[in-house]
């Protein structure tokens, strides 16, 4: 339970960090908060030759509200997200989802960018990013680029980030006025990885019908996904428990490549996702009604 030997650098600039990461001769890995990487290294599941610590790189630790769009520096800790009045005001869904992440002792170190780049399928941040339609800024040897969330999460622990690229910023667009939302998950103990989770955003039109519904189940397969069949089944309809339960049952049955492990079987995960989905839709409708 100790990491294999590796070398360590703590560059002062992003350019220097990218230089280390883009060197093909060395298997280098970014070190952000280390709350997922270091356990993986302790268990020797990850054996990088070089760790590039971003702790001293300027301007990666910030929370900004730019006309409703929330901009989070990649090295911002989840504790800072938790305590930020800017986040609570601009993006209450993120604030709620953030509270599902582990415990203060972990959130003190765990970073926003780390969770996105690590792309654990059971993690909250990738699901929130997909639900809100996030964009990510990355910088690499060929300069800066913006990656939309739909192109970002590839499969288990795999993203569109290329060799030498560093995730620098997460941009979460503001929810439209009147949007109702919910973020639900079930873990064996609070703070553990989710066995299943579902995030929802939706609006109600003047007749009270659901519209612009987004449903994102997570911890169920390789990446969080949009449950588009559920979204289509609900849009234009009057919200009801029957509608939600029926649609979420179909969602659960249709999950492709579901995760099955020691924490929960496929059947149990399907069951949880359908119950959580219906619960999340109900709560989102309640919030949308309260907002109108």
């Amino acid at each position: 339970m100790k990491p294999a030997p590796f070398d360590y650098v703590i560059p002062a600039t992003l350019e220097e960090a990218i230089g280390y990461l883009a060197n093909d001769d060395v298997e280098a890995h970014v070190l952000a908060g280390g709350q997922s990487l270091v356990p993986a290294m302790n268990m020797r599941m990850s054996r990088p030759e070089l760790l590039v610590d971003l702790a001293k790189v300027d301007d990666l630790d910030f929370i900004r509200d730019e006309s409703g769009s929330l901009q989070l520096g990649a090295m911002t800790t989840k504790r800072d997200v938790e305590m930020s009045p800017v986040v609570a005001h601009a993006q209450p869904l993120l604030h709620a989802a953030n509270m599902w992440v582990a415990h203060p002792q972990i959130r003190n170190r765990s970073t926003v960018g780390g969770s996105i780049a690590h792309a654990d399928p059971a993690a909250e941040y990738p699901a929130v990013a997909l639900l809100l339609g996030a964009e990510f800024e990355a910088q690499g040897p060929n300069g800066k680029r913006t990656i939309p969330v739909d192109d970002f999460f590839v499969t288990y622990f795999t993203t569109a980030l290329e060799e030498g690229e560093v995730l620098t910023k997460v941009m979460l667009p503001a929810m439209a006025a009147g949007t109702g939302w919910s973020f639900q998950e079930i873990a064996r103990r609070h703070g553990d990885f989710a066995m299943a989770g579902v995030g929802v955003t939706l609006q109600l039109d003047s007749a009270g019908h659901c519209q612009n519904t987004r449903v994102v189940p997570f911890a169920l397969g390789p990446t969080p996904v949009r449950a588009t069949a559920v979204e289509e089944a609900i849009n234009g309809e009057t919200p009801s428990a029957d509608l939600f339960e029926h649609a979420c049952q179909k969602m659960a049955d249709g999950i492709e490549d579901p995760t099955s492990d020691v924490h929960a079987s496929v059947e149990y995960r399907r069951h949880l996702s359908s119950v959580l989905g219906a619960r999340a839709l109900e709560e989102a409708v309640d919030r949308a009604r309260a907002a109108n």
Partner: protein
Amino acid sequence: MSDKKTIRVTVNGTAHEAQVEPRTLLADFLRQELHFGGVHVGCEHGVCGVCTILMDGKAVRSCLTLAVQADGHEIVTIEGIANDAELHPIQQAFIEEHGLQCGFCTPGFVIAIYELLRDNKEPTEEQIMDVIGGEICRCTGYEGIRKAVRSAIKKLQAASA
């Protein structure tokens, strides 16, 4: 590869300089190099919480922090919590309320609760549970620990009144 690095850390108010391998975990550095035996090592993947210390005032897992990452930072271990010969009110509350049995997990609990009560004089039950849920005790069943937290809150309020 993996040449030793020089680090400078302040632990419980005393400055230290040392040469460490990058792979040395902060927990092992504090325990084995600096002999702070109150830093216990349990699961070594961030789950059990027994290695929790304060780094720049924040409760963190010293098993998920490399010693090199502590360079230039200020560490407080359980040995730095008590004031000279007198136990800290949180420690006293643990004794009085049966917040420990075997005591292996206690340093992590005390540090985590220390951070909570320093920043929040009247935490909600949910906030208390969020913190103590991040520390694993397999003796007490947590009831004694919850009582100890409530007792510590009163002690600290009385001390600052």
